[in-house]
C-alpha cells in the first residue's frame, strides 16, 4: 500500500489533485479494528473544476503505466479508487484530515468524526455498520461530531440511528 500512498502524494505534489484524504475501509481500519475492504478510497479536491475531473488522474496513471480496473487504478496491483469531493461535507473532511504513517510514508486520512458523518450521510448497509463500529469503539469526540452533524443537517438522522443501535 505504501506505493499507492506515494503515488497519491506525488499527484498532490504535482498539482494533479489539489488535496486528498483516505476514506472508506482503510480509514476505518486506521481508527478501529481491521475492516475487510478491497480498495483504497481517495477523496480528492480536483485541481480544476469541470465536467471530467477524473481525467487528469487517469491521464497521470496512464502516463505512469498503471492500469485501470473497473473504477480503480492499480498501483503495483493495489486498487486505488479516486472519488472527487462530491459535497461540502467531503470537502470539509479533506480540509480537516489528519496524518497517518504507513511503513514510513505519511498520508492524509479523514478524521474519525468526519468518517462517521460521511458514513451516516452515505447510509449504505456497510456505512451504517462502520458508523456503529466507530460509535462502539468510543473514539469519537462527541462535541466535534455534533458540530459536524449540525453544520450538515445530519443531527436528526444521527439521533434516529443512535436509537436503533441502542435498542437493537
Amino acid at each position: 500500500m505504501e506505493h499507492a500512498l506515494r503515488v497519491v502524494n506525488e499527484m498532490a505534489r504535482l498539482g494533479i489533485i489539489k488535496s486528498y484524504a483516505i476514506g472508506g475501509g482503510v480509514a476505518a481500519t486506521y481508527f478501529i479494528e481491521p475492516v475487510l475492504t478491497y480498495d483504497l478510497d481517495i477523496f480528492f479536491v480536483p485541481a480544476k473544476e469541470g465536467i471530467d475531473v477524473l481525467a487528469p488522474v487517469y491521464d497521470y496513471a496512464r502516463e505512469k503505466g498503471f492500469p485501470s480496473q473497473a473504477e480503480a487504478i492499480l498501483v503495483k496491483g493495489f486498487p486505488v479508487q479516486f472519488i472527487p469531493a462530491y459535497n461540502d461535507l467531503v470537502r470539509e473532511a479533506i480540509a480537516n484530515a489528519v496524518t497517518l504513517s504507513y511503513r514510513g510514508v505519511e498520508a492524509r486520512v479523514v478524521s474519525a468524526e468526519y468518517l462517521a458523518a460521511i458514513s451516516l450521510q452515505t447510509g449504505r448497509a456497510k456505512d451504517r455498520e462502520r458508523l456503529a463500529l466507530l460509535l462502539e469503539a468510543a473514539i469519537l469526540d462527541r462535541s466535534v461530531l455534533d458540530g459536524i452533524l449540525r453544520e450538515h443537517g445530519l443531527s436528526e438522522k444521527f439521533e434516529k440511528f443512535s436509537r436503533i443501535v441502542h435498542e437493537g
Partner: protein
Amino acid sequence: MKDSVADPIFEKKRERRRQLAKLPFERKVAIIVEMQKAAVAIRKDPRRRVWPLDR
C-alpha cells in the same frame, strides 16, 4: 433481544475487537490482506483481488 447466556461471549468478542483496534496500522493492514485471502478462497470472484504486501 439480549440473551444473558450469550452476553459474556459477545463481551469477549468486543474485547477482542478493542484489542485489534489498538494494533499498529501496519499490522491491521496485514490482517486485511489475510481476510481478503480468506474471502477470495471462499468466493471466487475476479473483481476481488488480494493486495500485494511487500515483505
